[in-house]
């Protein structure tokens, strides 16, 4: 990295926090990569339980995937509002993102309870174990993201809102988009390629 670029960003808190977030996201790639690889190893080991083709409902999952994709749109619009210091708009988009995220999660819960009823649980087979652990791990990340979105929206109401608010939303946004792109991979590799 050239000395010139370093001087430009030197000690800028916004830059420092973004570097940290990208470093963290690089690490998260390995986390999900391990889970996805475990799944790829075990996806045909279905034992006595159902296979992917038998149990997946592609139309349903496509809709929830689309919902999560759209939540990335609302997220980036929330971030854009902070640039214009339009806090009301920002809150609207943050809450919209959280609602879309919660809808996605509700869809996951519905889908999983259906699978359990049809005979696929986390202990049925390696396929079941790796599928549920991967998707639950992702779902937990979504839930944490929803929590952060709501807390950020709430904090903007209180007097403790700091002048670098745009940065907080940007960091939450980076995390949220990452969770979305992980799902892009999961949807394709687990669901679409599984059937």
């Amino acid at each position, binding site marked *: *990295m050239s*000395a010139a670029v*370093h*001087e430009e*960003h*030197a*000690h*800028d808190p916004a*830059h*420092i926090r973004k*570097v*940290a977030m990208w*470093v*963290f996201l*690089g*690490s*998260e790639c*390995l*986390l999900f*990569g*391990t*889970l996805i690889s*475990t799944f790829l*190893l*075990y996806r045909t*080991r279905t*034992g006595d339980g159902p296979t992917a083709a038998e149990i997946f409902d592609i139309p349903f999952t496509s809709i929830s995937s689309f919902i999560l994709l759209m939540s990335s749109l609302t997220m980036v619009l929330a971030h854009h509002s902070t640039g214009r210091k339009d806090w009301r708009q920002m809150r609207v988009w943050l809450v919209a993102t959280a609602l879309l995220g919660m809808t996605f999660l509700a869809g996951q819960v519905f889908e999983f309870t259906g699978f359990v009823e049809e005979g696929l649980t*986390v*202990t049925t*087979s*390696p396929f*079941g*174990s*790796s599928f549920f*652990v991967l998707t639950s791990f992702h779902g937990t990340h979504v839930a944490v993201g929803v929590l952060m979105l709501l*807390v950020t929206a709430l*904090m903007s109401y209180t007097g*403790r809102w*700091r002048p670098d608010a745009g940065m907080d939303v940007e960091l939450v946004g980076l995390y949220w988009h990452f969770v979305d792109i992980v799902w892009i991979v999961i949807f394709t590799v687990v669901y679409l390629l599984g059937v």
Partner: protein
Amino acid sequence: MTGNRGLWHWLTTTDHKKIGKLYGVTALAFFVVGGVEALLIRLQLATPNGEILSADAYNQMFTMHATTMVFLVVMPAAAALTNYFLPILIGARDVAFPRLNALSYWIFLFGGLFLTLSFFVGGAPDGGWFGYAPLSTQVPEVVRMDYWALGLLVLGLASVLSSVNFITTVLTLRAPGMTLMRMPVFAWMATVVSFLLLFSLPIITIGLLQVYLDRNLGTAFFSAAGGGDPILWQHLFWLFGHPEVYVLVLPAMGIVSEVLPTFSRKPLFGRPFVIFSGIAIGFMGFGVWAHHMFTAGLGPVAEAAFALTTMFIAVPTGVKIFNWLGTIWGGSLRLKTPMLFSLGFIFLFVIGGLSGVTHSIAPADSQQHDTYYVVAHFHYVLFGGAVFGLFSGVYYWWPKVTGKLLNERIGKLHFWLMFIGMNLTFAPMHILGLNGMPRRTYRYAEGLGLDLWNLVATVGSFTIAASVAVFFWNAYRTAKRGEVAGNDPWDGRTLEWSISSPPPEHNFDVVPVVHSEDDFWHRKYTEDASGNAIPLAASAQADPGHPETIHLPSPSYYPVLSAAGIFVMVVGLVYLPWGLSVVGGGAVVTLWGLFGWSMEPLTREDHG
């Protein structure tokens, strides 16, 4: 809010130097614990059919000795020196995220206490530090391996957070003029280590989670009966485990790269090569993991590939060795204790590296695997390497941290006792291994030809123990009546020697402007035609730098609170299902800590 002493001050500190001290003291304490575990092992093996330890106790000893030394001693010792010196070496006032830094320490401490707790509640982990499945996933009613899996998860979290912190610090907080290539080699190695941890820990995090789920939820990740594959665990573990050994040794290599030039009064020979070989070791460290699995039935293609990559990784290490030798060659050597330990590092690490190269030959490794030959190899690189390197750093930087110099004569006694003891202990293990003595077996029969060298090794181990006692005596004596060090007792080359011993809380009165590598040296000396150092006049050394008002991060109790919550959570997770309420309680505490933290400004100047 409170004075500079007292428990509360230490519990809430966010100062990287204090956090470094906390890591250092904790690492030393666990060094004694891990050492005692080793001595018990050696007592048991001193004679055939030993009766000091039962088989069960022996399993716990070798598991915990390794786990303690790797995760609770060597890594935190490196963290101590990195925490203390990385910001100073790059001309910064602190790390990028001081409270996150504190959190890493407290999570580490609670993780170590969590592992130690197991001894008192039915037995410590006993499945080896590498926890091979299905041994580690069987017998869920005995919770020892739950302590192991959860303990490592907690410790891994501490390290990942540190890595994010250090990488961000190096990328954003270097002093003006300090380009990456002007950064001291120790700072570079700390950066490579952070990247290694950043990318290897997530892999084992998932593996450990899978072990925990196999044990507690009945999943089928590593259970052959359930359709899973235990070999997957080996891959996941060693994908982390191999980069981990470079995590253990690179800081020591960084220290050697600082000590040798100082005590040879010569710049580091081939500095860019030393840096690039460190980076190469980092990258290549991810490409050799299956050399731990040569007897796992991977097949000839995989085995050949990993044999080759393992042979290749010797190259960048060799580059470092030759550059270190080039540094010493023709230098004006001062054989002070830090220098002795660094020279000892080179000698002992080369021996360990050579036995490592013999491991790379897959067919030869088939005989060596699971014998004491391997134990010899890794103790030469980890004890002769990492530990000697760390002690070099300890003696080198002790005066900067405490303001007093450790006694030279006692230090030399420590060095020679440790050097002799180390060789007495581990050299015979090459022979024992090639003669077939297996690892992790609590006793051996008479008449196998193993008696003599085991006895020698035990004598050696107690020699090491004596040397450690000498070190503690030196530390105690220095605290009572040690020689005052001054700013620059070694006529050093890097920025830490330009400030007081110990440094002020804000590190630098004025942030330095850096013009070259070894900037401090060039502020003290210029060179004449034949390359001799000519001292500059004191006035010529002053550099105005950038005057500014200094804002230091305020203390905070949220890091220790959040870490305590995590401790409570993992205890609850061991004892499911009734532990769920405990997990909930711990989660509440952690969330309270994190939320309070997010609302608290970093610097609270208007508070008393």
